[in-house]
Protein backbone atom coordinates (compact mmCIF):
# COMPACT_ATOMS: atom_id res chain seq x y z
CA UNK A 1 0.00 0.00 0.00
CA UNK A 2 2.96 2.25 0.97
CA UNK A 3 4.59 1.67 -2.44
CA UNK A 4 1.41 2.74 -4.30
CA UNK A 5 1.31 5.91 -2.24
CA UNK A 6 5.03 6.60 -2.96
CA UNK A 7 4.39 5.90 -6.71
CA UNK A 8 1.44 8.31 -6.85
CA UNK A 9 3.54 11.01 -5.13
CA UNK A 10 6.37 10.63 -7.67
CA UNK A 11 3.87 10.69 -10.58
CA UNK A 12 2.27 13.92 -9.34
CA UNK A 13 5.73 15.54 -9.04
CA UNK A 14 6.49 14.62 -12.66
CA UNK A 15 3.14 16.00 -13.93
CA UNK A 16 3.69 19.27 -12.03
CA UNK A 17 7.20 19.62 -13.48
CA UNK A 18 5.99 19.03 -17.06
CA UNK A 19 3.14 21.57 -16.78
CA UNK A 20 5.51 24.17 -15.31
CA UNK A 21 8.01 23.56 -18.10
CA UNK A 22 5.26 23.94 -20.68
CA UNK A 23 4.17 27.24 -19.21
CA UNK A 24 7.64 28.71 -18.85
CA UNK A 25 9.56 27.73 -21.86
CA UNK A 26 7.32 26.59 -24.64
CA UNK A 27 4.11 28.41 -25.70
CA UNK A 28 1.46 29.78 -23.43
CA UNK A 29 -1.95 28.26 -23.97
CA UNK A 30 -3.14 31.52 -25.48
CA UNK A 31 -0.37 31.52 -28.04
CA UNK A 32 -1.12 27.98 -28.87
CA UNK A 33 -4.56 28.99 -30.14
CA UNK A 34 -4.92 30.51 -33.68
CA UNK A 35 -4.58 34.25 -32.63
CA UNK A 36 -4.60 36.79 -35.53
CA UNK A 37 -1.15 38.00 -36.69
CA UNK A 38 -0.27 40.98 -38.78
CA UNK A 39 1.06 39.07 -41.79
CA UNK A 40 -1.19 36.03 -41.72
CA UNK A 41 -3.21 35.73 -44.94
CA UNK A 42 -6.60 34.27 -44.34
CA UNK A 43 -7.66 33.92 -47.95
CA UNK A 44 -6.07 34.12 -51.37
CA UNK A 45 -7.71 34.32 -54.81
CA UNK A 46 -6.16 33.69 -58.16
CA UNK A 47 -7.47 34.78 -61.60
CA UNK A 48 -10.70 35.96 -60.03
CA UNK A 49 -13.72 38.04 -61.00
CA UNK A 50 -15.78 39.82 -58.38
CA UNK A 51 -19.04 41.67 -59.12
CA UNK A 52 -20.71 44.02 -56.67
CA UNK A 53 -24.39 44.65 -57.24
CA UNK A 54 -26.57 47.33 -55.73
CA UNK A 55 -30.06 47.09 -54.23
CA UNK A 56 -31.72 47.12 -57.63
CA UNK A 57 -29.56 44.19 -58.70
CA UNK A 58 -27.54 46.03 -61.33
CA UNK A 59 -23.76 45.81 -61.25
CA UNK A 60 -21.98 48.59 -59.33
CA UNK A 61 -18.58 47.44 -60.42
CA UNK A 62 -16.74 44.41 -61.70
CA UNK A 63 -13.25 43.64 -60.42
CA UNK A 64 -10.88 41.19 -62.10
CA UNK A 65 -7.35 40.38 -60.91
CA UNK A 66 -4.46 37.97 -61.25
CA UNK A 67 -4.01 37.51 -57.46
CA UNK A 68 -5.74 38.80 -54.34
CA UNK A 69 -4.48 38.38 -50.78
CA UNK A 70 -6.48 39.34 -47.69
CA UNK A 71 -4.72 39.75 -44.32
CA UNK A 72 -6.61 38.47 -41.35
CA UNK A 73 -5.73 40.95 -38.62
CA UNK A 74 -5.68 44.25 -40.48
CA UNK A 75 -8.24 43.41 -43.17
CA UNK A 76 -5.67 44.67 -45.72
CA UNK A 77 -6.33 43.58 -49.30
CA UNK A 78 -3.68 43.47 -52.02
CA UNK A 79 -4.57 42.83 -55.67
CA UNK A 80 -2.10 42.19 -58.48
CA UNK A 81 -3.05 43.37 -61.98
CA UNK A 82 -6.48 44.60 -60.97
CA UNK A 83 -8.97 45.62 -63.65
CA UNK A 84 -12.02 47.52 -62.46
CA UNK A 85 -15.01 48.27 -64.70
CA UNK A 86 -17.70 50.57 -63.36
CA UNK A 87 -20.27 53.10 -64.46
CA UNK A 88 -19.37 56.78 -64.15
CA UNK A 89 -21.87 59.41 -63.01
CA UNK A 90 -23.11 59.94 -66.57
CA UNK A 91 -23.73 56.22 -66.95
CA UNK A 92 -20.75 55.46 -69.20
CA UNK A 93 -18.36 52.55 -68.65
CA UNK A 94 -15.04 53.44 -67.03
CA UNK A 95 -12.16 50.99 -66.90
CA UNK A 96 -9.24 51.28 -64.48
CA UNK A 97 -6.14 49.06 -64.68
CA UNK A 98 -2.82 49.12 -62.82
CA UNK A 99 -0.06 46.77 -61.70
CA UNK A 100 -1.22 46.68 -58.12
CA UNK A 101 -4.01 47.87 -55.81
CA UNK A 102 -3.71 48.06 -52.04
CA UNK A 103 -6.27 48.78 -49.35
CA UNK A 104 -4.58 48.89 -45.93
CA UNK A 105 -7.76 48.15 -44.00
CA UNK A 106 -11.47 47.70 -44.64
CA UNK A 107 -13.11 50.93 -45.95
CA UNK A 108 -9.65 52.56 -45.98
CA UNK A 109 -8.17 54.47 -48.94
CA UNK A 110 -7.23 52.43 -51.99
CA UNK A 111 -3.85 52.98 -53.65
CA UNK A 112 -3.39 51.99 -57.29
CA UNK A 113 0.26 51.82 -58.35
CA UNK A 114 2.26 51.01 -61.48
CA UNK A 115 1.12 52.14 -64.96
CA UNK A 116 -2.32 53.30 -63.85
CA UNK A 117 -4.64 53.77 -66.84
CA UNK A 118 -8.19 55.08 -66.60
CA UNK A 119 -10.30 54.90 -69.74
CA UNK A 120 -13.77 56.38 -70.10
CA UNK A 121 -16.17 55.80 -72.98
CA UNK A 122 -17.43 59.04 -74.53
CA UNK A 123 -20.93 60.47 -74.68
CA UNK A 124 -22.46 63.31 -76.67
CA UNK A 125 -21.78 65.66 -73.76
CA UNK A 126 -18.39 64.42 -72.65
CA UNK A 127 -15.69 63.02 -74.96
CA UNK A 128 -13.90 59.70 -74.47
CA UNK A 129 -10.67 60.17 -72.57
CA UNK A 130 -7.78 58.20 -71.09
CA UNK A 131 -5.86 59.23 -68.02
CA UNK A 132 -2.41 57.78 -67.37
CA UNK A 133 -0.21 58.21 -64.32
CA UNK A 134 2.16 56.28 -62.06
CA UNK A 135 -0.15 56.00 -59.03
CA UNK A 136 -3.60 57.04 -57.89
CA UNK A 137 -5.17 57.28 -54.43
CA UNK A 138 -8.93 56.88 -53.93
CA UNK A 139 -10.44 58.07 -50.64
CA UNK A 140 -13.92 56.48 -50.37
CA UNK A 141 -14.99 58.67 -47.43
CA UNK A 142 -14.29 62.00 -49.20
CA UNK A 143 -14.88 60.46 -52.68
CA UNK A 144 -11.60 62.12 -53.71
CA UNK A 145 -9.12 60.75 -56.26
CA UNK A 146 -5.61 62.22 -56.19
CA UNK A 147 -1.96 61.73 -57.10
CA UNK A 148 1.30 63.62 -56.69
CA UNK A 149 2.80 62.00 -59.78
CA UNK A 150 2.93 63.26 -63.38
CA UNK A 151 -0.38 62.82 -65.15
CA UNK A 152 -1.58 62.90 -68.75
CA UNK A 153 -5.08 63.14 -70.20
CA UNK A 154 -5.72 62.26 -73.83
CA UNK A 155 -8.97 62.85 -75.66
CA UNK A 156 -10.09 63.75 -79.18
CA UNK A 157 -10.05 67.40 -78.07
CA UNK A 158 -6.33 67.27 -77.24
CA UNK A 159 -3.75 66.47 -74.57
CA UNK A 160 -3.38 67.79 -71.04
CA UNK A 161 -0.29 67.10 -68.91
CA UNK A 162 0.73 68.20 -65.45
CA UNK A 163 2.08 67.13 -62.09
CA UNK A 164 -0.21 66.37 -59.17
CA UNK A 165 -3.94 65.97 -59.59
CA UNK A 166 -7.11 65.99 -57.49
CA UNK A 167 -10.69 65.38 -58.42
CA UNK A 168 -13.77 65.44 -56.24
CA UNK A 169 -16.36 63.05 -57.59
CA UNK A 170 -19.19 64.93 -55.87
CA UNK A 171 -18.23 68.40 -57.08
CA UNK A 172 -17.27 67.22 -60.60
CA UNK A 173 -14.18 69.37 -60.25
CA UNK A 174 -10.67 68.44 -61.37
CA UNK A 175 -7.44 70.26 -60.37
CA UNK A 176 -3.96 69.84 -61.80
CA UNK A 177 -1.53 71.14 -59.21
CA UNK A 178 1.53 72.23 -61.21
CA UNK A 179 3.35 72.32 -64.50
CA UNK A 180 0.21 72.42 -66.66
CA UNK A 181 0.75 71.93 -70.43
CA UNK A 182 -2.32 71.66 -72.64
CA UNK A 183 -2.71 71.36 -76.39
CA UNK A 184 -6.22 71.44 -77.87
CA UNK A 185 -7.08 70.93 -81.53
CA UNK A 186 -8.60 73.96 -83.25
CA UNK A 187 -12.36 73.74 -83.39
CA UNK A 188 -12.59 75.50 -86.79
Amino acid at each position, binding site marked *: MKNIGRLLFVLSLIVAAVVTWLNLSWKSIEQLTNSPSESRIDYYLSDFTLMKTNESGSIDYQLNGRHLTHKQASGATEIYQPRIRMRSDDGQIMTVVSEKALQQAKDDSITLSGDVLVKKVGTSS*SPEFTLSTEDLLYNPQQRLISTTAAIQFNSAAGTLKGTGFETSLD*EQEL*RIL*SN*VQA*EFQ*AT*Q
Partner: protein
Amino acid sequence: LRDDVTKPVRINADTVVFNKAKGFAVYSGNVVIVQGSLQIRAWEITIQAPNNTIQSITAKGSPVQFQQTMDDGKVAKGKANLVRYLVPQKQLYLDGAAELTQNNDKFSSQHIEYSTRTGELKAGIARVKGKKPDPKGRVSAIFYPTNKAQ
Protein backbone atom coordinates in the same frame (compact mmCIF):
# COMPACT_ATOMS: atom_id res chain seq x y z
CA LEU B 1 -3.28 85.72 -89.21
CA ARG B 2 -6.45 84.46 -90.89
CA ASP B 3 -5.44 80.82 -90.40
CA ASP B 4 -4.53 81.21 -86.74
CA VAL B 5 -7.96 79.78 -85.85
CA THR B 6 -7.09 76.52 -87.61
CA LYS B 7 -3.96 76.02 -85.50
CA PRO B 8 -3.94 74.00 -82.22
CA VAL B 9 -4.22 75.97 -79.01
CA ARG B 10 -1.30 75.47 -76.58
CA ILE B 11 -1.73 76.54 -72.93
CA ASN B 12 0.96 76.49 -70.24
CA ALA B 13 0.18 77.41 -66.63
CA ASP B 14 1.10 76.60 -63.05
CA THR B 15 -2.30 75.12 -62.15
CA VAL B 16 -5.69 74.48 -63.73
CA VAL B 17 -9.15 73.76 -62.30
CA PHE B 18 -11.89 72.26 -64.48
CA ASN B 19 -15.46 72.22 -63.19
CA LYS B 20 -17.70 70.12 -65.41
CA ALA B 21 -20.88 70.87 -63.48
CA LYS B 22 -20.44 74.65 -63.72
CA GLY B 23 -18.73 74.51 -67.12
CA PHE B 24 -15.56 76.49 -66.54
CA ALA B 25 -11.78 76.10 -66.55
CA VAL B 26 -9.41 78.43 -64.65
CA TYR B 27 -5.73 78.44 -65.57
CA SER B 28 -3.59 80.28 -63.02
CA GLY B 29 0.05 81.28 -62.60
CA ASN B 30 2.26 82.36 -65.53
CA VAL B 31 -0.44 81.51 -68.07
CA VAL B 32 0.67 81.53 -71.72
CA ILE B 33 -1.75 80.76 -74.56
CA VAL B 34 -0.47 80.37 -78.11
CA GLN B 35 -2.55 79.74 -81.24
CA GLY B 36 -0.65 80.30 -84.44
CA SER B 37 0.66 83.89 -84.26
CA LEU B 38 -1.69 84.82 -81.39
CA GLN B 39 -0.03 84.91 -77.98
CA ILE B 40 -1.65 85.85 -74.64
CA ARG B 41 0.21 86.17 -71.31
CA ALA B 42 -1.66 86.64 -68.01
CA TRP B 43 -1.64 85.41 -64.44
CA GLU B 44 -5.14 84.00 -64.65
CA ILE B 45 -7.38 83.00 -67.55
CA THR B 46 -10.93 81.79 -67.06
CA ILE B 47 -12.75 80.02 -69.89
CA GLN B 48 -16.53 79.77 -69.51
CA ALA B 49 -17.77 76.82 -71.58
CA PRO B 50 -21.21 75.64 -70.44
CA ASN B 51 -22.33 72.58 -72.45
CA ASN B 52 -18.81 72.39 -73.91
CA THR B 53 -19.31 75.57 -75.97
CA ILE B 54 -16.89 78.42 -75.18
CA GLN B 55 -18.88 81.54 -74.34
CA SER B 56 -16.22 83.86 -72.91
CA ILE B 57 -12.54 84.08 -72.10
CA THR B 58 -11.44 86.43 -69.29
CA ALA B 59 -7.78 87.23 -68.65
CA LYS B 60 -6.39 89.07 -65.63
CA GLY B 61 -2.87 90.30 -65.29
CA SER B 62 -0.65 93.18 -64.35
CA PRO B 63 -0.99 93.68 -67.18
CA VAL B 64 -2.36 91.05 -69.53
CA GLN B 65 -0.26 91.16 -72.73
CA PHE B 66 -1.29 89.83 -76.13
CA GLN B 67 -0.06 90.07 -79.70
CA GLN B 68 -1.01 88.75 -83.13
CA THR B 69 0.45 89.10 -86.63
CA MET B 70 -1.99 90.65 -89.09
CA ASP B 71 -2.41 89.39 -92.64
CA ASP B 72 -0.42 92.42 -93.87
CA GLY B 73 2.50 91.26 -91.76
CA LYS B 74 2.17 94.00 -89.14
CA VAL B 75 2.21 92.88 -85.50
CA ALA B 76 -0.68 94.14 -83.39
CA LYS B 77 -0.05 94.22 -79.66
CA GLY B 78 -2.29 95.01 -76.72
CA LYS B 79 -2.27 95.16 -72.97
CA ALA B 80 -4.73 95.85 -70.15
CA ASN B 81 -5.37 94.79 -66.57
CA LEU B 82 -8.54 92.95 -67.62
CA VAL B 83 -9.25 91.49 -71.04
CA ARG B 84 -12.56 89.84 -71.86
CA TYR B 85 -13.48 88.21 -75.16
CA LEU B 86 -17.12 87.28 -75.79
CA VAL B 87 -16.96 84.51 -78.37
CA PRO B 88 -20.49 84.54 -79.83
CA GLN B 89 -20.45 88.34 -80.19
CA LYS B 90 -16.78 88.32 -81.30
CA GLN B 91 -16.33 91.36 -79.03
CA LEU B 92 -13.12 92.20 -77.15
CA TYR B 93 -13.13 94.43 -74.03
CA LEU B 94 -9.95 95.89 -72.56
CA ASP B 95 -10.17 97.58 -69.15
CA GLY B 96 -7.56 99.26 -66.95
CA ALA B 97 -4.57 101.04 -68.62
CA ALA B 98 -5.63 99.58 -71.94
CA GLU B 99 -3.35 100.01 -74.92
CA LEU B 100 -3.37 98.84 -78.54
CA THR B 101 -0.31 99.31 -80.71
CA GLN B 102 0.51 98.38 -84.30
CA ASN B 103 4.07 99.14 -85.34
CA ASN B 104 4.42 102.74 -84.04
CA ASP B 105 0.75 103.63 -83.96
CA LYS B 106 -0.62 103.61 -80.41
CA PHE B 107 -4.09 103.89 -78.94
CA SER B 108 -4.69 104.03 -75.17
CA SER B 109 -7.59 104.56 -72.81
CA GLN B 110 -9.07 103.17 -69.59
CA HIS B 111 -11.63 101.23 -71.61
CA ILE B 112 -11.45 99.96 -75.19
CA GLU B 113 -14.00 97.84 -77.07
CA TYR B 114 -13.11 96.15 -80.35
CA SER B 115 -15.29 94.02 -82.63
CA THR B 116 -13.26 91.34 -84.35
CA ARG B 117 -16.20 90.84 -86.73
CA THR B 118 -16.61 94.45 -87.94
CA GLY B 119 -13.26 95.93 -86.89
CA GLU B 120 -15.11 98.73 -85.08
CA LEU B 121 -13.21 100.19 -82.13
CA LYS B 122 -14.66 102.28 -79.32
CA ALA B 123 -12.65 103.80 -76.45
CA GLY B 124 -13.04 106.02 -73.41
CA ILE B 125 -15.51 105.89 -70.57
CA ALA B 126 -19.11 106.42 -71.57
CA ARG B 127 -20.44 109.86 -70.49
CA VAL B 128 -23.10 109.46 -67.82
CA LYS B 129 -25.72 112.20 -67.58
CA GLY B 130 -25.39 114.23 -64.41
CA LYS B 131 -21.89 112.89 -63.73
CA LYS B 132 -18.63 114.75 -64.34
CA PRO B 133 -16.65 112.97 -67.06
CA ASP B 134 -13.77 110.95 -65.57
CA PRO B 135 -10.44 112.63 -66.54
CA LYS B 136 -8.81 109.22 -66.62
CA GLY B 137 -11.31 108.26 -69.27
CA ARG B 138 -9.46 110.35 -71.86
CA VAL B 139 -8.43 108.65 -75.06
CA SER B 140 -4.94 109.07 -76.50
CA ALA B 141 -4.02 108.13 -80.06
CA ILE B 142 -0.70 108.45 -81.89
CA PHE B 143 -0.64 107.72 -85.62
CA TYR B 144 2.52 107.96 -87.71
CA PRO B 145 2.00 109.19 -91.23
CA THR B 146 2.66 106.36 -93.60
CA ASN B 147 3.42 108.53 -96.68
CA LYS B 148 6.89 110.09 -96.60
CA ALA B 149 7.23 113.84 -97.50
CA GLN B 150 7.57 113.97 -101.35
